[in-house]
């Protein structure tokens, strides 16, 4: 299809859909006037029955925990697909050592960058841990904290260079974290069934409201998500970075099997 015909088709589709969109927008409740009844009820009831302060975490890990389990496996599947696509061509054997392009000049890092990264890296990791652990009381949780923790490992790359980063961050550990996190989440769903409760029913003691150790099973699930997200995102960064390094190899023969 020529680009011109495509634009024409897009404009036509837009014109057809425009009245419907307008009608839907006009039918929605005016912005800021009211919220859905379901959310209202959750806000009213959950602090008492689950002893947690953060409603978003309560929904993610308890009330709609099954949905999050699905999301968790979507995450796992997407990262597995990425890693298979990237690593499949290179081969498993190459993943352990840092590759280097001979043609690329190694630029020495200034002392300032190294110093700042050595200070900021642990601080970022600490903040990520804080965000993970306080999922049930303040804004945060495994999803956000995991990404922050993964970003913290990038500061190692910035400060210590690529080889140093690869020495610190082991690919196999990341695989284990990613899969283990998903496994932990699944086990959190299955373990209550051993006691006769429903899937993912919150059987652990709920703890005190506004305390870090509140929410019972939510804390374990949160930990599982944090492990999976940290491992998964670090794995993504690592495999992407490796892709820029492998360029010098004569990769044509291996390409056919990818």
């Amino acid at each position, binding site marked *: 299809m020529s680009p011109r015909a495509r634009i024409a088709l897009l404009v036509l589709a837009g014109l057809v859909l425009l009245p419907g969109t307008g009608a839907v927008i006009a039918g929605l409740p005016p912005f800021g006037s009211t919220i859905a009844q379901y959310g209202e009820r959750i806000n009213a009831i959950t602090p008492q029955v689950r002893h947690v302060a*953060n409603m*978003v*975490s309560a929904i993610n890990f308890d009330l709609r925990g099954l949905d999050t389990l699905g999301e968790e496996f979507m995450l796992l599947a997407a990262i597995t697909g990425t890693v298979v696509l990237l690593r499949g061509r290179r081969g498993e054997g190459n993943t352990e050592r840092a590759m280097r*392009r001979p043609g690329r000049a190694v630029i020495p890092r200034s002392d300032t960058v190294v110093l700042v990264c050595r200070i900021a890296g642990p601080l970022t990791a600490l903040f990520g841990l804080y*965000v993970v652990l306080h999922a049930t009381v303040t*804004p*945060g*949780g495994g*999803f*956000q904290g995991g*990404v*922050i923790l*993964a*970003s913290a490992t*990038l500061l190692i790359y910035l400060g210590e260079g690529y080889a140093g980063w690869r020495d610190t961050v082991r690919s196999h550990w990341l695989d284990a974290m990613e899969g283990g996190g998903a496994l932990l989440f699944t086990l959190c769903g299955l373990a209550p069934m051993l006691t006769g409760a429903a899937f993912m029913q919150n059987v652990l003691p709920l703890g005190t409201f506004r305390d870090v150790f509140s929410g019972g099973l939510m804390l374990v699930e949160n930990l599982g998500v944090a492990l999976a997200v940290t491992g998964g*995102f670090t794995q*993504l*960064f690592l495999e*992407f*970075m490796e*892709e*820029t390094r492998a*360029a010098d190899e004569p990769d044509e023969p291996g390409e056919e099997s990818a």
Partner: protein
Amino acid sequence: MTLILPLLFLLTAVSGTAVVLVRDPARQIFAIAVNGLVLAILFDALQAPDVALSELAVGAAAVPLLFLVALMAVRTRPPEEKS
């Protein structure tokens, strides 16, 4: 607050448009990062600190980095035509 929210919504529309209209991928990465930052501010103003934190970590840091590295990976290939 009644004035900040509409302005932020308009800013979101502008930054989203910028992501589309900046055609050069190397420049688009900056537009993506700015868009992530604007979205994070908007979400915070919409009383969603959880989402803002997530968008800040993902949209303003992780995703632009992935784009950057993908662009690097494409550019370090032997250029057949244009990268």
